């Protein structure tokens, strides 16, 4: 299956700072999701972004499928942004099947 690598594994920020999280794939992808896992373990959908750029408030994401990476931008971070951020994608040959997840980026935002 597709290999998904996320960086950095850990990120500590002061409230108000900006950050960029990266997701690299071993193969090109037809679709991709970014999730935020909150302290209660719930996976919250952030973006479904097969290609291009999307924005939702302080968050935005860009996927360059042909170069096998995606970026998640968090601007003016808040303490409520803390948690683990995951990216995930299916195998190119199994577009509707299971997702392969990265190990996540643990984000801690201090007040």
């Amino acid at each position, binding site marked *: 299956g597709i290999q998904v690598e996320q960086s950095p594994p850990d990120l500590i920020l002061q409230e108000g700072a900006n950050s960029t999280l990266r997701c690299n794939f071993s193969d090109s992808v037809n679709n991709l999701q970014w999730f935020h896992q909150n302290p209660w373990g719930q996976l919250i*959908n952030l973006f479904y972004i097969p290609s291009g750029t999307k924005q939702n408030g302080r968050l935005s994401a860009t996927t360059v499928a042909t170069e096998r990476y995606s970026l998640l931008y968090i601007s003016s971070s808040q303490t409520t942004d803390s948690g683990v951020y995951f990216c995930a994608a299916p195998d190119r040959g199994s*577009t509707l099947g*299971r*997702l392969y997840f990265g190990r996540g980026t643990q984000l801690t935002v201090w007040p």
Partner: protein
Amino acid sequence: GAGVSQSPSNKVTEKGKDVELRCDPISGHTALYWYRQSLGQGLEFLIYFQGNSAPDKSGLPSDRFSAERTGGSVSTLTIQRTQQEDSAVYLCASRPWSAAGSQLHNEQFFGPGTRLTVL
């Protein structure tokens, strides 16, 4: 309901006992997935149901694990003779019918999970 629901939210069991975990997908979603999240192991795929097709069981770690999906809706994941290494959070996800024009849409929505502890 509005989202994927799972029950129970927490389950503590003794080694060797059987457990059943339940998932109610979002109404109208045709595909259902089970994943588990273990400490230090990340998120692992277990099984995938799509409509009336044979399920993709390629992620089930052993024959102690099985799952059913009745009537194309609710799913039950059963773990027989539980072991301590089965302790994990079991997550269920569902996906709507995929075809949207020429695009195949595979956005999965996750439930809150069942935290299983095997003593």
